[in-house]
């Protein structure tokens, strides 16, 4: 296939042709091409449409600052909206589509907006679409929304994976142009740990795009040699295709490595991208500079681009947008473009130089003191309209126009910790300010040193300084050292529809209107006009807008201020920030010791925090979960059931002050708890609200085992460490979590003792006399395995909790099942557990909701006044002890067939139903097989004195109203005889 605009030379591999498609049409490029360079080589200039006016657009740049040439890359679930053609590496089989056009790129119906542009000025929508009021939602907004965005998502899950990684170094060098390479060489030779990162796939920066020489040879040679030397150093890491996206606190940098974006599909097991967290006490920013355009009417046509971009395409990629080009410049740098392209056989129509003293050339015509004032060409540039020095006008035929208004240092990362750049008059540009991120220094064009010599020189010098390298610096290679001064030239006199922000269609006219309407600060300007808010983050547009605003305000540019740049440096895939933590790996999964057994058993599992717990164990013939749960509850209450309660937090509390310590963290007393006994404990936050409850078992004088709720295990441990280290630093008490070390099972029901007697070794007497309610002990089971036994009950039945080291949990569960056959032992899950605790009136997470007090929970008297404990004082505040304070109650529907809904509110039997008459709410609800009715727990104003009252339970959001009776929360065995049996 022919590539009509392909030139000679360049850094492309002509032996590796690559076939690709753009908008369904087949093209061919070469390895080393970007999508943009390959399309230009194929004489395609039109690559996209602008956001608001749908103007035809081609590439403005050859890099990541590109506002125009954005495509939908790839297809299917891998579709990538708004991918820059100027940075997308060409690969075999690449597919791309243009965006924001209908029906086609060449003919876009929405281009009609351009005709009505006079209505669609900055902020027009704030002033209209208000009449009639109802029309906004139904008519205006849907239309506006339809026009939103450029590219579109696939609506399918991203099939690729992303990794995160961590790297450390002494010096991070950002940017591998002359300054960066020179810095990395200096630092690397000193033996320091160095990371050199560059967003490009080829290191060398501008040197790849210029025809400069270093040490009297083409710069390419020096670049290749330098990279080879760095590659050979094992203390240096080269990270191409890696964009440093942000400078975060204390020398932590975010960097995204595009591992697989240059291939069709990532290799098996490999990520698409890696988000690196780079720890760098010192950083040297060598990010170079970005050329700035000059605004003139219709300066946005395909073919009009930055002069340096034309040069990049010609020199690096051997491509040109046209065979007859012109240059519009206010500085010498623009002339380089003419010289280089002329050398490659491209016809130079003319160089239009705003300066009367512009340099002469014998190779092409130079129009001194001239300006480009307008352009022509529907889908691409055909003519440039000039105003010459003598005021006469002239039409210049050209298929491309390179524009150069000078260069702006890439200060972006220097602003990421809100440091402001400072104004440099000689360069008429902002340069890195005084307050850089700690540890960061800047070299080369990024700090305004534009000559190659200065870049090499400052890179080496800054690296030495940053690392404190002693001794004389190695001589800097010989290179071009032309002094650079820039005179500002932002826009052509009298222009109006002259584009500043090309993607968002912000023109000089819009900036003027913004000023006219009082939006005069930079912050107001960008918000009102959307200048600089596009995906290029204003890299090529902010300065122009600022300059015009300054002129209108009669101020200097620095007085108007500057917008500071925020991370990321270039837009970054959200997937890269997510990394591997997605799908089932979003959070780690915690499995209980009986998990594998429960799975065999066909258990249904439920997420409880990060734990997976058996919710119920369906058996053959059961079609509805309620059948399984009811059976489990009945069987447990009738004989014996077993439940894995390993997930309860377990904290080992040891030390001579262990008891005194627990006396502080629990609101009830623990000092006098006898060895071999367990006690229920309620923990308050310092603000007097209940935090958590559990039990503390005193295994020895100086050794307790504390249990917490599953949900609060981590929080309680943190709290106890705070109390230990910060409030009572000289208590002799040590804490450590043992939650996962022990498999702990509740064995509950009238036959629980009989079952355990078959497991517990004979020398341990667990009869009611020897081992009464609330007893605890270290024992052995199954012929000598160390274990712990607690006689505690959540179910309200005679019950024990038995614990063995986790690795034996699976076997113990199987043993309990086999030994329990004679009692029809039944494993039960969290649902049955919940039903039984509700029947018993035990508070759990739904009741301990962070707003309830001991009083609300019916445990007001537990808060000991005899001692100081965390939260006891603030729990005495009047608002927490009012006459009609909420009290936990039981709730029963009058008609047993009726539903009780957790989350329902309680209203008096008669009277209005509204917030003003709210009496309380239902926290938990379940079907009680025991009572053959749904029951609930809840909080009711003055609930202690309202037993027997009939009320309405209302849940409008699930539209339910039920007549209920307020009863005791202890539905089952209120006297607690069973637990003591």
């Amino acid at each position, binding site marked *: 296939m022919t590539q009509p605009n392909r030139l000679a030379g360049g850094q492309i591999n002509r032996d590796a042709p690559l076939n690709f498609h753009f908008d369904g049409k087949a093209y061919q490029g070469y390895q080393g091409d970007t999508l943009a360079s390959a399309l230009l080589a194929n004489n395609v200039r039109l690559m996209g449409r602008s956001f608001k006016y749908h103007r035809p657009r081609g590439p403005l740049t050859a890099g990541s600052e590109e506002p125009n040439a954005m495509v939908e890359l790839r297809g299917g679930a891998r579709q990538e909206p708004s991918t820059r053609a100027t940075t997308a590496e060409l690969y075999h089989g690449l597919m791309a589509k243009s965006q924001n056009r209908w029906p086609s790129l060449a003919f876009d119906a929405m281009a009609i907006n351009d005709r009505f542009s006079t209505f669609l000025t900055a902020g027009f929508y704030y002033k209209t679409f208000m009449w009639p009021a109802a029309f906004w939602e139904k008519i205006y907004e849907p239309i*506006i*929304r339809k026009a939103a965005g450029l590219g579109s998502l696939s609506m399918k899950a*991203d099939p690729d994976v992303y990794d995160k990684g961590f790297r450390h170094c002494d010096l991070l060098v950002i940017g591998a142009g002359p300054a960066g390479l020179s810095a990395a060489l200096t630092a690397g030779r000193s033996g320091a740990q160095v990371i050199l990162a560059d967003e490009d796939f080829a290191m060398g920066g501008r040197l790849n795009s210029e025809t400069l020489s270093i040490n009297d040879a083409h710069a390419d040679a020096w670049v290749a040699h330098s990279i080879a030397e760095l590659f050979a150093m094992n203390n240096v890491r080269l990270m191409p295709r890696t964009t440093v996206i942000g400078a975060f606190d204390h020398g932590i940098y975010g960097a995204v490595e595009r591992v697989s974006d240059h291939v069709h599909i990532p290799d098996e097991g490999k990520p698409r991208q890696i988000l690196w967290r780079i720890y760098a006490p010192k950083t040297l920013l060598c990010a170079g500079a970005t050329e700035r355009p000059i605004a003139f009417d219709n300066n946005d046509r395909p073919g009009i681009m930055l002069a340096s971009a034309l040069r990049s395409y010609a020199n690096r990629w051997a491509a040109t947008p046209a065979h007859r080009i012109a240059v519009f410049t206010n500085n010498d740098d623009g002339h380089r473009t003419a010289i280089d392209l002329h050398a490659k056989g491209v016809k130079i129509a003319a160089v239009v130089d705003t300066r009367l003293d512009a340099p002469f050339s014998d190779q092409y015509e130079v129009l001194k003191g001239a300006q480009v004032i307008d352009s022509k060409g529907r889908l691409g540039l055909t003519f440039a309209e000039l105003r010459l020095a003598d005021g006469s006008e002239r039409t210049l035929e050209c298929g491309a126009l390179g524009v150069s208004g000078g260069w702006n240092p890439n200060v972006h990362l220097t602003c990421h910790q809100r440091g402001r750049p400072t104004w440099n008059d000689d360069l008429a540009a902002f340069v890195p300010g005084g307050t850089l991120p700690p540890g960061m220094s800047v070299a080369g064009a990024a700090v305004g040193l534009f000559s190659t010599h200065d870049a090499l020189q400052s890179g080496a010098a800054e690296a030495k300084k940053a690392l404190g390298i002693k001794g004389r610096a190695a001589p800097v290679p010989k290179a071009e050292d032309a002094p650079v001064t820039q005179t500002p030239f932002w826009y052509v006199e009298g222009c109006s529809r002259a584009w500043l922000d090309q993607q968002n269609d912000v023109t000089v006219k819009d900036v003027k209107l913004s000023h006219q309407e009082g939006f005069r*600060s930079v912050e107001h300007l960008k918000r009102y006009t959307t200048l600089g808010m596009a995906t290029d983050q204003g890299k090529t547009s902010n300065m122009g807008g600022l300059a015009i605003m300054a002129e209108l305000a009669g101020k200097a540019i620095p007085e108007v201020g500057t917008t500071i740049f925020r991370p990321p440096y270039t837009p970054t895939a*959200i997937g890269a920030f997510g990394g591997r933590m997605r*799908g089932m790996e979003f959070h780690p999964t915690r499995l209980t010791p009986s998990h594998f057994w429960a799975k065999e058993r066909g258990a249904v599992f439920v997420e409880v925090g990060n734990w997976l717990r058996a919710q119920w164990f369906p058996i053959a013939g059961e079609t509805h979960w309620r059948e399984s749960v009811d059976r489990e509850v009945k069987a447990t209450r009738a004989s014996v059931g077993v439940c894995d309660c390993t997930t309860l937090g377990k904290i080992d509390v040891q030390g001579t002050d262990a008891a005194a310590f627990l006396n502080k963290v629990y609101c009830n007393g623990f000092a006098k708890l006898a060895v071999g006994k367990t006690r229920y404990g309620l923990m308050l936050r310092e603000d007097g609200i209940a935090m958590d409850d559990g039990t503390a078992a005193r295994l020895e004088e100086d050794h307790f085992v504390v249990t917490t709720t599953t949900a609060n295990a981590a929080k309680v441990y943190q709290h106890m460490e705070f109390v230990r280290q910060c409030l009572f630093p000289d208590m002799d008490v040590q804490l450590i979590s043992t939650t996962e070390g022990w498999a702990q099972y509740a064995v509950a029901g009238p036959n629980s003792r009989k079952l355990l007697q078959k497991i517990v070794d004979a020398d341990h007497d667990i009869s009611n006399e020897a081992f009464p309610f609330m007893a605890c002990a270290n024992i052995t089971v199954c012929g000598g395995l160390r274990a712990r036994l607690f006689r505690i009950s959540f179910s309200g039945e005679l019950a024990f909790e038995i614990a063995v080291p986790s690795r034996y949990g699976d076997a113990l569960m199987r043993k309990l099942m086999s030994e329990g056959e004679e009692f029809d032992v039944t494993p039960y899950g969290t649902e049955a557990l919940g039903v039984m605790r509700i029947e018993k009136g035990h508070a759990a997470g739904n009741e301990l909701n962070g707003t309830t007090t001991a009083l609300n929970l019916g445990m007001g008297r537990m808060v000991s006044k005899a001692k100081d404990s965390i939260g006891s004082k603030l729990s005495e505040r009047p608002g927490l002890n009012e006459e009609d304070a909420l009290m936990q109650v039981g709730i029963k529907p009058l008609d047993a067939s009726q539903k009780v809904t957790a*989350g329902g509110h309680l209203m008096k039997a008669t009277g209005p139903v509204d917030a003003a008459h709210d009496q309380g709410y239902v926290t938990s609800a379940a079907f009680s097989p025991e009572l053959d009715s749904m029951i609930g727990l809840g909080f009711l104003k003055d609930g202690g004195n309202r037993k027997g009252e009939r009320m309405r339970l209302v849940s409008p*959001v699930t539209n339910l109203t039920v007549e209920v009776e307020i009863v005791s929360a202890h539905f089952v065995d209120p006297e607690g005889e069973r637990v003591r049996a």
Partner: protein
Amino acid sequence: MRYSGFKVIKEALTGHKGWAPAWRDPEPQPHYDIIIIGGGGHGLATAHYLAKVYGEKKVAVIEKGWIGGGNVGRNTTIIRSNYLLDGNEPFYEFSLKLWEGLEQDLNYNAMVSQRGIMNLIHSDAQRDAFIRRGNAMMLNGADAEYLDLDQIKKEYPFLNFNDARFPIKGGLAQRRGGTVRHDAVAWGYARSADSRGVDIIQNCEVTGFKIKNGKCLGVETSKGFIGANRVGCAVAGSSGRLMSKAGMRLPIESHVLQAFVSEGLKPVLPGVITFGAGHFYVSQSDKGGLVFGGDLDGYNSYAQRGNLPVVEDVCEGGMAIMPMIGRARLLRMWGGIMDMSMDGSPIIDRTHIDGLYFNGGWCYGGFKATPASGYAFAHLLARDAPHPTATAYRFNRFETGHMIDEKGMGNQPNLH
């Protein structure tokens, strides 16, 4: 100048020469009846309602930078009234009603977009809590709707129903919730207040209060002393900084909350969606950007910028619930200073200093509250009594034990 369809067309045809500045740029007068410190959403709204509803004539808003440059200019633009507690719900419902009439009230289109908010539910306990909340909303006259899994699948087919670590079990929707073009809120209130004679004084920093025998007589500023009968402070994240100049310590910590926006995308999201098993909520702006956020960074900060761990945490949440956004690109991240109160609820109250009033502690609920906050604060300043919907927002609630703790996290601001 009144905006109208006719005016827009006329200006378009005459080169837009007739547009006047949206507000004046006056020098401060020596004395005002009421001074509002803080030219953010709440301060400007207060000024608007003082002038329009309470007929106050001599009012000034003093802003240390440019108006609308604080949290109103850097938030995730969500409006809703889906609160649980009696102290909150009526207030936020009042706010939502004011949003619904805002365009007409201000003659400014802030693009109030009621495309709904959906809180996803991932566990039974969460369902119980959201049902209780939905009921509280309806009992307070707000709208709420419980959706089961099938309804969620129908309305949000792009969520993760395949391999979710915490499967979606349902959702609580408020259809009247939505988003608003946040900058336009500040500009609309400013323009309206200015047109009613309020002086909006930008680039004027308050350096101190003039307090004589327990009475506040005015403020010292970078533009000199300005006298006032009543001074109202509405400076959100800067509350601690400002009130310390009056010798006050507050039940407030300042924390950084990061927010994020993606590149503009063709419309994909119907409304606001919040993930119930991670830190992620998202909506899509009228320009197509996915606007999303998550949790606080967690440490006290006035730096208006955050760090990577939270960025990753938020995006992990997004990828977990909405894996289609993996190839969408994050365009910009920024941080705002949140005035996190000790129970997660705001304060609109007198201070112990006569004539000095305070409005703050909005945590990250401030934007949605803008109209009601302004209205209630105006009421307090004009009538010296709390507005009926804001009676619970008092300083002394922590002494008496009447906290308004929606999340049940207690006196640790970064958990609210």
